[in-house]
């Protein structure tokens, strides 16, 4: 056989072999063990640095924890942090799996039961979540978040009793819920949990004791003035109060409540409609100057507000007629 033909066949064979290597994934290249150059502590520390830098670095942090676990499968911290990241990714089953490793290695690991409860809560496993939060409160009595979540569990139970017309039990459990929220606020270990606890208390008191509810929500806003859920809830309470006053024909009191509603967040575009309501109250009480001022504010906030525009026109006409 000619050298040329042999060369051609060799090229073909070499090509087929390289194709097979690629196709069967033989070229793994990266040996898992060889890449593990740091100590377990080193990986965990690097992971913690990235983890604490925020959600955007979770991916990098997770790789560090994974490597730490490769070297030391009994490292509770790495398992726990990995579980936290899985929880953030909504990989709930994997988070549970990682937490079971934490439980195996270090059953008293701080934060274990709180995270376990949160994962179960997200998966709508109410019983498991409740049991975990109870343990979390025992484990960390000064942890606001644990109390807050336990409070939400009691609140859910209360709703469930209400739906079954077991009103007495519902009230008892609701009181336990309130108790947990109060503890969360007193512990004051986590601003978010405290704000949420105030919010939940506001919701609980909303219907029967709106003034107390408003007070709770105001406290929440003192901690976080941008908490949208709280703002929305508080506006809702003032709106209901104002409408109640209107139905009782106590218009000026209603106007005051509307004013409080506006004061929560004065720059909110939705306030234009509230100004219109106040303006209408003043107009119907023949307080035309005050009415004109609030209609103008409504028009300032929302130049396309048709009602404010026509009201101002009417007031101008009225003024001209009077003159």
């Amino acid at each position, binding site marked *: 056989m000619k050298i040329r033909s042999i060369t051609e066949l060799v090229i073909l064979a*070499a*090509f087929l072999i390289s194709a097979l290597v690629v196709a069967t994934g033989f070229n793994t290249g990266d040996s898992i063990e060889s890449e593990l150059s740091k100590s377990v502590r080193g990986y965990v520390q690097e992971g913690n640095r990235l983890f604490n830098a925020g959600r*955007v670095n979770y991916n990098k942090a997770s790789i560090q924890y994974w490597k730490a676990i490769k070297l030391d499968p009994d490292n509770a911290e790495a398992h726990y942090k990995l579980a936290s990241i899985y929880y953030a990714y909504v*990989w709930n*089953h994997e988070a549970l*799996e990682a937490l079971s490793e934490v439980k195996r290695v270090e059953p008293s690991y701080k934060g274990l039961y709180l995270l376990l409860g949160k994962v179960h809560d997200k998966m709508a496993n109410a019983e498991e979540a409740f049991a975990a939060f109870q343990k979390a409160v025992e484990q960390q009595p000064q942890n606001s978040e644990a109390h807050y979540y336990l409070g939400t569990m009691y609140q859910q139970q209360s709703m469930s009793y209400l739906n079954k017309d077991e009103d007495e039990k519902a009230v008892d459990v609701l009181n336990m819920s309130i108790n947990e929220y109060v503890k969360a606020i007193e512990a004051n270990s986590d601003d978010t949990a405290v704000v949420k606890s105030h919010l939940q208390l506001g919701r609980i008191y909303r219907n029967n004791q709106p003034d107390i509810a408003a007070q709770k929500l105001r406290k929440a806003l003192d901690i976080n003035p941008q908490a949208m859920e709280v703002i929305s809830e508080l506006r809702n309470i003032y709106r209901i109060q104002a409408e109640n006053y209107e139905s009782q024909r106590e218009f000026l009191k209603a106007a005051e409540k509307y004013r409080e509603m506006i004061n929560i967040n004065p720059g909110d575009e939705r306030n234009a409609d509230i100004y219109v309501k106040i303006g209408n109250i003043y107009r119907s009480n023949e307080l035309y100057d005050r009415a004109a001022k609030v209609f103008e504010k409504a028009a300032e906030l929302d130049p396309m507000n048709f009602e404010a525009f026509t009201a101002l026109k009417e007031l101008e006409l009225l003024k001209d007629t009077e003159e």
Partner: protein
Amino acid sequence: MKEWKVQIPALVIVILACIIVDINLKGYSREVKGQAGNTYVSCIGEITQIDAGRATGQPTAWTWSVGGQEGGQILTIEILSGRFKGQNVFAANTFIGEYSDRVFRVGDKIYITLEAKDDSIVRTSPVGLGEYVRTSFLLYLAAAFLILIIIIGGSKGIKAGLSLIASGVFIAGLLIPMFLRGYNPVLVSILIATVNSVLTFMLVGGMTRKSVAGILGTVGGLATAAILAAFSSYLLKFSGLDISFGFLNLGKRLWLAGESSNWDFRGILVAGMIIGASGAIMDSSMAVASAIDEVKKANPQIGIRGCIKAGLNVGKDEMGTMANTLIFAYIGADITLILMPMIQFGEAGQAFPFTRVVNQEAASAEIVQAMAGTIGLIMAIPITALFAGILIGKSHGEIDEADSKFTGKPIFRWIVPIIMLVTAIGIQVGYSVTRRSAATQTDRAEERIVSEYVRAKVIDRTSSIDVPSDSGYAKGPAKSEILRVKIKGGNYRNDQTLVQNIIDPNRIPLNNVEVNNGDEVLLKVDGTKQSLYEAIMHNYSRDGILLYIIGLFIILMILVGRFQGIRTIIALTISLTIILEILLPLIMKGYDPVLSVIVISGFVAFTSLIIITGFNRKTGSATIGIMGGVITAGLLVLFADQRLHFTGISSSRAALAVQFTTSQNLDFRKILMAGIIMGLLGTAMDAAIAVASSVREVRNANPDLPAAKLVRAGMNVGTDVLGTMANTLIFAYVGLRLMLIMTLAGTNILAGGKLEILSTETVAAEILRLLAGSIGLVLTIPITAFAAAWWDEIMSVLGFGGKTT
């Protein structure tokens, strides 16, 4: 016997058969028992009157508008078939503002469904509006095709027609029933293709050594294609379920259906690849075996090596044009898939970048199908040459052809291995480069990576855990595992990330990505430029292996075809570049797709033929013939479009594109037509070059021969190849749509009677593809023969004096 003595009876039989079948089709009526003694009657109706308005009491439906007609149409329909023939019914055609809306015209014939009780129509029950009646038109088109091959091909045309009918009977009567009975699809397809080739060779050449060599070559080519197809399907983890029927996800329906529970979907996909290639493989084996036989007749002293070399020489020529056949047929059949990376989807931008599309099973499978088939036909050439050489040349002494030794400079002898080596290295480099590439979309400020498709290698993974399945089917829990992967390209190259991978037995296997350590996967990631935020498992990474399959095709083409192989690869590369870089952008810019394809086809044909055979009268006349065939097919599909009311939504991808694209210029109806025309290009080139070559050879042998005789010689050769070429097209399309054919034949998944299903756009478009392509092919032959015979005269008329060789 005079030709007309067989032609006229054959024509009469075709016309009579067509009329009889049409009468049957027009009398279509199907009844299904309903509840409370009612019957649902499907029949044909003709729209006699249309009133636009708001009369049917479906207020929400009337808020949309289509074609400037708000709301919908109230149709008066005259029943044309069944027991209520002659009666009128009324139906509401409600527009919902989506692509599926149809605007009917007076005179349209459609399938309708009525509710009947006793002997009368239940007038209070709404009339169901089915498909347009497309079967009659397709029937007449099929008849036109048969009439044309009888007129043009004479007795050979009749044989070709019979061979086509036999192929159809083989497929419908043997292949599909065997698949449906659960026989191994791969083995059945090899067996059927072999039996078909045995019968075809015997029919054409009788029980001769030439036939035996041709059969053995075909079997060799089929075996090569089968091994490659099966091995590739295994490596690329095809499920066989990435198929759609219009906007219906047919793969999922088949997977869920009890009727298809015993189907081996991947096996059927591989069988389709084998069947698709069988026509082309048979064709090339036939050409090589015949050529060796002719050489032996011309020179009885020639020995085995001489015969083999002669066969290889012919095979190399054959290979040049045959390689185009399958590739163009498959490109034409799924032109929307190739367009997908260019289509804009509003805020999602290019939602289907090339990296995503090429790794999808549908695209990967089509590339494998084209490559496996073409490699099969390449390998059939030396195998046929070897067997033909041994069988035909053995009885005499070894006399090699005088010109068999290459007498060029030593460096040129090494060109073939050098180019093989360059190709092999090029593929390795291409593999590395593509691994590092990514399809990235950023936000407007270019600060955030909105989506990036990247390849990643699995380094490590957790053991899987049971998780609840999202689907409601009870095949056990899903398994979830976390993979640690290393990203190979794009913005996050060399970064590692965790990715969740859920394998759910309750969902279609197409959507599961089962991987091991070391495997490569395709991820969709997003994040900031600095940090990856989230990675989602998207698919298997298939393009690396595909690249090696393409590399194998190129190397084998060069190894077998030598210089001719190199020329073929260059021609093919240029053709594909023209299609990707000129034709598709033209279509995207809003130029008429049909016109663009016709013009570009001429350009592609001319360029390819110049590269493969050089610039001569053969190239020129073949180009004229190809253009003639392509223009005919173009006119035919445009005419058919008027009669068949296509929308262009022949696949779920097209439906997706029509519904959500923001590329304003796309006319999917015409894109479908353009694909039908493009599918013809490969076979037309093959047939045209065969005719033009023979005319040139005859002219060279006898320069004084009158043009009429030259035309006859060209027609003789053309009609010889007609049967096998049309067979090639039929098998290619049957192979491509094998699962659809099986669904039609063996399940009740598609609603309605068989005739109604034949009338659906998806099926009708496939039939039109086959018939328009075949008619274009038939007409390519006489046009090429005339152009070749009167080439000098044509050149003089065009102002190019002088004779070309």
